[in-house]
């Protein structure tokens, strides 16, 4: 049975916390590309008849504070890497629980989180992190905003492929917004560049997931 999405508060998945915000504030502060500044963390309210406000921020205040308190690039990358590991483990644990015909999707999501984990681990080990970050953030990826108005499902007992993809999109979007928010609140410098880099990586991932979403949902599924 397809999960039914209602405009209500969603239950939390582990390590996530919901927050509320007015629709118009969110829209005005929405990043366009990696350089858009946010004055506050993007949080959403569940407001009837609206689009973006029905999305929920998938990042806890505690996690954001963890990042804000770090002062070196390696420390921040360690935390970011930990987030990727958590996400990877989440999908890896989910894979055997979903029906076999959609398991490929969850396994691919776990693989992509692993790739991010490897990327951040590799970056942290480099001596020239700063130069690498500068090169990356000079090529920001545009946020297509396709997934703006895709409802965030409660995955439930038996999610279908669309629900899994929506969930993954929500996570990537929330992570993207989180890093943008942190970049906005960080003065120019290496740490600011690192947050922009992380936001860019999450945007790339989100854009890739939107392509998969279109192929699965909008093209007959075959």
């Amino acid at each position: 049975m397809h999960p039914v999405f209602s405009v209500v508060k969603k239950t939390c998945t582990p390590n996530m916390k919901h927050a509320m915000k007015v629709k118009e504030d969110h829209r005005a502060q929405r990043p366009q590309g990696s350089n858009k500044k946010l004055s506050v963390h993007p949080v959403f309210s569940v407001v009837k008849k609206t689009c973006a406000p029905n999305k929920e921020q998938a990042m806890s205040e505690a996690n954001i504070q963890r990042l804000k308190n770090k002062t070196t690039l390696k420390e921040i990358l360690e935390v970011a890497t930990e987030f990727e590991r958590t996400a990877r483990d989440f999908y890896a644990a989910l894979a055997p629980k979903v029906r076999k015909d959609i398991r490929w999707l969850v396994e691919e999501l776990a693989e992509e989180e692993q790739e991010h984990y490897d990327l951040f681990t590799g970056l942290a080990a480099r001596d020239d992190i700063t130069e690498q970050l500068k090169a990356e953030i000079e090529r920001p990826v545009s946020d297509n905003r396709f997934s703006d108005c895709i409802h965030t499902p409660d995955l439930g007992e038996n999610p279908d492929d669309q629900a899994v993809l929506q969930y993954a999109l929500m996570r990537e979007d929330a992570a993207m917004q989180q890093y943008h928010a942190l970049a906005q609140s960080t003065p120019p410098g290496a740490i600011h560049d690192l947050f922009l880099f992380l936001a860019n990586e999450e945007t790339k991932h989100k854009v890739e997931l939107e392509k998969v979403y279109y192929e699965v949902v909008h093209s007959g599924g075959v």
Partner: protein
Amino acid sequence: MSIRDVISPFTAWKNLFRDPVSIADPLNRPASARYRGFHRNDQELCIGCGTCETICQNGAIDMLPVDGLAASKEDSGLRPRIDYGRCCWCALCVDVCMTGSLTMSNEYKWIESDPDNYLYTPGVDKKHWDDSELGYRRHEEKHLMPLVRVEMPELQPRQRMDSFVEMVKGYDVEQAKLEADRCVACGLCIATCPAHMSIPQYIQAVRDGDYDRGVQLLYETNPFSQVCGRVCTHKCEDSCAARYEGDPIAIRWLKRHIIDQVPQERVLELIGKPAAPTGKQIAIVGAGPAGLTAAFDLARLGHAVTVYEAQAAGGGMTRYGIPEYRLPYDALDRDIAVITAMGVDIKYNQPVGTDISMQQLENDNDAVVLTVGLHQGRSTRIPGSDHPQVRKAVELLRQITNGEKVDVPKSLVVIGGGNVAMDIARSMARLQMQQYGQINITVTALEALDNFLADPVEVKESFEEFINILDSRGPRECVFDDDGKLLGLKTWKVLSIFDENQRFAPRYDESDEQIHEGEMVAEAIGQMMDVNLLGEDLTERLEWERGRIRIDADGRTSEHWLWSGGDCVKGPDVINAVADGHRMAASIDLALHETTEDTKTTEQ
């Protein structure tokens, strides 16, 4: 006779030891501008149709393969080789050339010491006259074959807008013969057709007025000719040689013409009886084109076939998805009746997965075929899409087919740009006209009009029926009043949808936001298979490939007893489903024979 007369023949021998002398260019006189000289063949335009070979009165042209040139759906991979020992340079080949690739230079001098070099493949064998501007070309307005298709009589928009009567009337005998006469029998269409129907041969049958032969040819490859003759995607017409300078041959309409001419009883006589019973039992899940084609073939081979169909009637999406104004139910019923006449037993209202399990089918049958189609509609899941008045298009179409009472909204928004979107829009438009006397339907799609997945004819006819189609609109949310009543759909303008790799990468103009009035929203964005009917155990045992059951080239799954084909593994297309049905039947028959041989060997 003088001494000189006797000796002179012997004096000729003195020339035996002289070198031959050829004067290369004794006259140095150019030919006239339109002189019919040596041939040229533009390789960019040539499709290897062989019409030049057919028309050559001297048999001077042979179509031969060329090294490095591969055949494709629009190119036979062959090129004309001309024997200049036979050619009389009449230029009939140039006059009939279907693409205009074959022309003539005005060069008339070619000196060779090896006469075999005059077996010449123009365009492949490079010559100095290849780039010549002068020479003979067919006059632009002179064509040996008529370019324009015989027009198909259809109901005009005002006549059809409030009715589900079939809008395409079909060719009469005279019209069909005129259209069949345009065919040059190149055969490129055969390779393109997924079922490889004998198209030039059945067009010849129309030309000859031999409809019995036509029906026999149709049934060699397609037991759904009533259906395909009306709704096939006609990929054959996309490779028709006539389309380069005119209209492609109306292959689909000619197929329909043949099957419409022959009474049902005569069709059954022509097809003949099935073979003797083999004692093998096969179950087929789903009475759509793939399943019933497999059933037809297997029954004719003597196997006992039982088809389990969840709905009250057969045809699958050809009945429950395609509206009656395109495919009348009685036409479909005629196709199905021929199949059941072969002894196929169809059990209607017997959904597998509830009334009977796949496990039972595995236990009770020698082989099982899964052809369940894509009967579940996808949802955008945008905010508000869970409202009761936001419906799936495939469910609405099924209700209309079943004759159920449908809640006809005064205003409807359809999301999607494929054939299903057009089908629901046009069906609801007819119901609106019948109930309210006016139409208020808006179709919105992410894609630009040129990229709509729907057949262009469907889109054109939708416009004619006063359906408002808005392309490049991305659905954002459903809009409600304070009482929770659906008011319509909000969309944003889509600036572009695909990136340079043709992958989904939409860009929106958020300042261009519209709300489209609708008491109902119908989602027609995609479809999926009902996997639940397989049961958990079989779902886990089967191998899958990115959401589809993994099959081999013959349609066999990873379970040795189970085959699958049609929409559920290949995507929505009737003729592909028919082709899959044939492949699966052939594979099953071979597998059953191998099993029988193995059993006999073991017993011995």
